[in-house]
């Protein structure tokens, strides 16, 4: 299967330091890819490169085989949504307003949201279990609720429904388009306690299983990556240390190497 999204030998340097150094990553349809690494290993930069908000110094990032920089921002946004580590707002938007903002790439410059957009937003709230919060001010939510609302906003962004023309193969094309959607999350549980971590993990698994959304997430949390992802890339000082299926890569030796700890100490963290 051709990859939906691929980084091809990307390098990103900042002040002559290679923050991301010759990294290649492929995201195939339905993938659940974890980017695991200690703080400062270049995870966030790699995700920004993959989402096209940052341009690589060298190398290529391709969405469906096309250079991502050459695809219009709105076309990228209809396919690929990003959940940042934390989102703090300058103004007091309600949860519904926040989720409706995800509809931006589906609307013309002066177009306002219609019933289809509202339905997309409500469906996204349902999918993340945040429907009861719909009228709350985003600022008043807890960390875990905020993160789920941002995921809902990303889902509303990926929802293609209004622009689907009715066709004989409507159901088939809807399925195909669902599996084309990509969700990129940057340390989604970094500031959350265990209960919220488990909640986010179950939301993400459900999005993958029910909608076929491909997931790429960065984290330094071994438990979290095991509970969501099937493949993992280990990133150390901007370079790929190892990659492959979870079971093969998450070994005491590699994890010890990645975090600079004794493999004997790393073993219990992997449940072995």
């Amino acid at each position, binding site marked *: 299967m051709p990859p939906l999204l691929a980084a091809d030998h990307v390098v990103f340097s900042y002040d002559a330091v290679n923050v991301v150094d010759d990294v290649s990553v492929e995201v195939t349809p339905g993938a659940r890819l974890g980017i695991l690494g200690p703080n400062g290993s270049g995870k966030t930069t790699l995700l920004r490169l993959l989402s096209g908000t940052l341009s690589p110094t060298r190398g290529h990032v391709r969405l469906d085989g096309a250079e991502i920089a050459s695809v219009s*921002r*709105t076309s990228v946004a209809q396919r690929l949504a990003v959940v*940042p580590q934390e989102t703090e707002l*300058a*103004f007091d938007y309600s949860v519904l307003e926040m989720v409706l903002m995800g509809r*931006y790439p589906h609307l013309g410059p002066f177009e306002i949201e219609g019933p289809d957009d509202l339905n997309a937003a409500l469906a996204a709230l349902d999918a993340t279990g945040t429907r009861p919060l719909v009228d709350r001010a985003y600022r008043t939510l807890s960390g875990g609720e905020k993160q789920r609302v941002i995921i809902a906003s990303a889902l509303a962004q990926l929802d293609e429904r209004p622009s689907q023309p009715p066709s004989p193969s409507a159901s088939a094309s809807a399925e195909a388009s669902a599996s084309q959607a990509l969700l990129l999350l940057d340390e989604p549980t970094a500031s959350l306690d265990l209960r919220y971590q488990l909640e986010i993990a179950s939301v993400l698994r459900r999005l993958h299983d029910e909608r076929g959304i491909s997931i790429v997430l960065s984290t330094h949390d071994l438990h979290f990556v095991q509970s969501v992802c099937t493949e993992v890339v280990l990133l150390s000082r901007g370079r790929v240390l190892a990659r492959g299926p979870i079971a093969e890569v998450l070994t005491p030796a590699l994890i010890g190497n990645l975090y600079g700890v004794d493999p004997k100490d790393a073993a219990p963290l992997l449940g072995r």
Partner: protein
Amino acid sequence: MTPALPLRRGLPMVTLCFAAMVVAICAAPFVGSMPISFARVLDRQIPFSENIDAQIFLIARLPRALAAALVGGTLAAAGVVFQGLLRNPLATPYTLGVSAGAALGAMIAITFGATLPILGVASAALVGALIAVAVVYALAQARHRGLSTTVLLLAGVTLNAFFSALILFVQYLGDFAETYRALRWLMGDLDVASYEPMLAALPFIVAAFLSFAWLARPLNLLSLGGDAAAARGVPVRKAQRIAFFSASLATGAAVSVGGPIGFVGIIVPHLVRLLVGADHRLVLPASAFFGGAFLVACDALARTVIAPLELPVGIVTALIGGPFFLWLLLRKR
């Protein structure tokens, strides 16, 4: 139960703000040290040259009410755009140094106007504002590819301080009468006796409001942060550039008409957000209308509170705005 679209819920409030502005513009000309009668103003039996009431209404007070509405609406809307651009609810139209540039231009025209009559005070203010905009933009662009809002803020604050020093220097060179005029201008005054300064400012203001209409939705997303907005498809750098230039031009044009009238650009957006929420598609038009109504009312107050003397309207807005601002700071978590 399906909730209504938030945008729809706010529309009645925007309409109400518009109505408030229209009522204020129509009512304000009847307020003043010299009472005029509505019936006489409209009385076609009396020739205009003999109808003092109609003359006061049309020549003295209506232009002033319209100028107040234009300036108030523009400053309030520009305030909203600056707050959105800088992601800072405490930003004002004057934060980035536009008004200091305008003030310097006006000070030079007032002080040296007799010897070098090149530009009127209003035009000089506009030129000064444009120069300040160019300097701040060049500074903010210099080290970054996009517009860094941090650098924008720092450049604006520094430029404000530097221009203030130049303003004092120019004032020091002026004589007693010039300094008095300069000081009065700095207080912010709508003592316009004609439509001309308004007409000169109007093209800039119209162009700015057309940009604001496009900006409203991108500004919503920019308040999530630049990366988050870009990930949702917002052309971030373009939106930032348009926001900066349109709001700066609008501010410069408004200041050229009324001087640096304070607090309108911050009180009004905050009050309006309490009424319609945070969506810029509601906050922008509602602030423009409410800002117009607010400044017309403040000006009517300024003209009557110590009649027959007239206070500069900037003093009234500052007297209302100062305590309001404090209240706003204290009620924040």
